[in-house]
């Protein structure tokens, strides 16, 4: 899997908000060994777009997203946000950027301080960031507006603490806390994975509404392919620290060309899964990121593996003439070029 390369970066567009180039994230593993968590990943996100990052545990999707906000700063590579390279900023400059990029996490309950009232949790960012003159009336109005926007009662929020809310409501509080500083980007790390399906639908709809209302750009991480397909404009599939397929979400799910994407999709228990009858199953174990395979990182488990895959790393190349890119020497090209089955709806 994949591979390096930056052919898929959209240099021609002038509305690119985040541009990550050659991102590498390595962690020391003791005894001089190194965990190659993310290796030479590039992608861009346009303003108002949602990029979905999918892949299995350990593929580096969360590490990639956290590297965007420099938590921790990447080993190498650049993260360009709105024309500024975040990796080159000093501590204080970086701090000044923080309100622009907010984050929400998987477990809504453990990410909220249980001792504080919900109103105070949501308003804390404003307390820190507003000028003296702005505090008071302005911030009160802003907090109440946001709490109401995410579907909670602002009066109750003054009195109640997180444990008095359900999991879905706590996730709404997390979203409110992220929104209060009027960020441009929200990074959502598995935001609905801990929720029941009926509540998951409520939170996903709310996120879409907030995106619309506040003009947000989202980086959405999930292991659930159906959820990612639903919320994302573009999707990047990751495996062992590399991007293997990236492009328009509907196109990738309709015509997956990378063998890994196909196996991942085939495993989704959904009756409408176009690959449900695929007999191939992903075999073997995930290789260690301390000593990732040479060539294509997926070569140890790929059903289409050839000698070349074991020695040469594939570079990301375009499939057809649309927004569809993959890093594979032998992609599955049957079906590509046909019209995607899904049609966008409002």
């Amino acid at each position, binding site marked *: 899997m994949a591979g390096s390369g930056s052919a898929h970066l959209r240099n021609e567009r002038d509305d690119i908000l985040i541009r990550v180039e050659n991102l590498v994230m390595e962690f020391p593993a003791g005894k001089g060994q190194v965990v190659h968590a993310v290796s030479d990943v590039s992608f861009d996100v346009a303003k108002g777009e949602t990029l979905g990052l999918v892949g299995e545990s350990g593929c580096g999707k969360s590490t990639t997203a956290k590297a965007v906000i420099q938590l921790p700063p990447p080993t190498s590579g650049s993260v360009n946000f709105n024309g500024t390279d975040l990796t080159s900023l000093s501590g204080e400059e970086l701090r000044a950027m923080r309100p622009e990029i907010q984050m929400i996490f998987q477990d809504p309950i453990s990410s909220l301080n249980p001792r504080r009232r919900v109103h105070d949790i949501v308003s804390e960012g404003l307390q820190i960031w507003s000028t003296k003159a702005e505090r008071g009336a302005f911030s009160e109005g802003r907090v109440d507006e946001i709490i109401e926007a995410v579907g909670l009662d602002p009066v109750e929020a003054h009195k109640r603490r997180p444990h008095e809310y359900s999991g879905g409501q706590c996730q709404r509080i997390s979203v409110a806390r992220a929104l209060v500083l009027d960020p441009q980007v929200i990074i959502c790390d598995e935001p609905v994975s801990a929720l029941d399906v009926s509540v998951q639908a409520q939170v996903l709809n709310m996120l879409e509404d907030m995106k619309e209302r506040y003009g947000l750009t989202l980086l959405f991480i999930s292991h659930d392919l159906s959820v990612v397909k*639903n919320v994302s404009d573009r999707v990047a599939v990751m495996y062992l620290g590399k991007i293997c397929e990236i492009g328009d979400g509907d196109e990738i799910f309709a015509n997956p060309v990378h063998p890994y994407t196909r196996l991942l999709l085939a495993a*989704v*228990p959904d009756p409408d899964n176009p690959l449900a009858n695929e007999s191939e199953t*992903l075999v073997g174990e995930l290789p260690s990121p301390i000593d990732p395979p040479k060539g294509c990182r997926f070569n140890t488990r790929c059903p289409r593996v050839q000698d070349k895959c074991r020695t040469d790393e594939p570079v990301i190349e375009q499939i057809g003439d649309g927004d569809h890119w993959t890093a594979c020497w032998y992609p599955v090209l049957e079906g590509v070029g046909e019209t995607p089955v899904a049609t966008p709806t409002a």
Partner: protein
Amino acid sequence: MAAADANNEPLLVVEDYEVGFRTERGLARAVDKVSFELDRGETLGIVGESGSGKSVLNRGIMGLVSSNRMIEDGSVLFDGGQMVNRNRQEFWGAKIGMIFQDPMTSLNPVMKIGKQIFEPLRQHLGLDKGEAETRAIELLTQVGIPEPARRIKQYPHELSGGMRQRVMIAIALAAEPEMLIADEPTTALDVTVQKYILDLLRQLQLDRGMAMTLITHDLGVARGRTDNVMVMYGGRVMEHAPTDTIFAEMRHPYTEALLASVPSLKHAKHTRLTPIPGAPPDIVNPPPGCRFSPRCKYAQPKCTEQAPELNEGEHRYACFYPVGTDASAEALEKNMAQGHTATGLKIGLAPAKAAG
């Protein structure tokens, strides 16, 4: 019981089974008069949201929730023997195996894998150490663990999540139980590993003619992997039918709503989802009448006054206005016209504002 009879009688007969917990606020009826049968070799999917009682039902049957705050009533016959209100330790492992969601908390972190598999083999099958080791290696091979002879000398933390769950399955199957309770066995796993584990369970079940209850919140898993599906809500059975029937002709509005709320791969991006408004019921003070009525778009005055009973037959459901009938169509029309249901839930052309 003669062998010929044994194949016709259901393995498990549950009747009016109740599990309640005494709390400061009153009795929490986690499982409220649940009845069902499980045949030998059958896979029953038990589906529902958190708090629906699906786990407590199965743990209750196994006698794993007993505490002085818990009360249990009704009847559970396993192979003709009553299980309720008695010590069920003799069933554990030997007759009913169980696997749980999180293999890391179910395995002993400071005991080697091998020893954890030897235990049921020696206790239930009376094997000596050498025999147990041979059998353990066989079991690990069956569940698809490479290099089993090396693995039995390893600790749980040295294995991946999928591998640990395979070890759990090997332990659960070691004493050759007649029934397996799988409580969200793949929820903590990646989809590709999930597929492997579910394929494996299916194969082992076919080989051994073992019955299985598969507890899951994932309707896709229930749909592809079960013979029958039972939908639970607020401690009660809402609908119970053969899997194909329940997905093609669901009758209960809750089943319909649950299915509608799941994002599907066939939807184009940014397709608006259909959540279930409101939140699950409080089982200490459940709503009067049908427990789903406060969230149901078909709810009529009758639904708030009287709790519907499950009907008899192969397709059981508890609803006065079953989905797909004229009664439900009329009920919905009436509610749409007045803009709200009998429980005050606002409905109409504009999507109701989510509250949960």
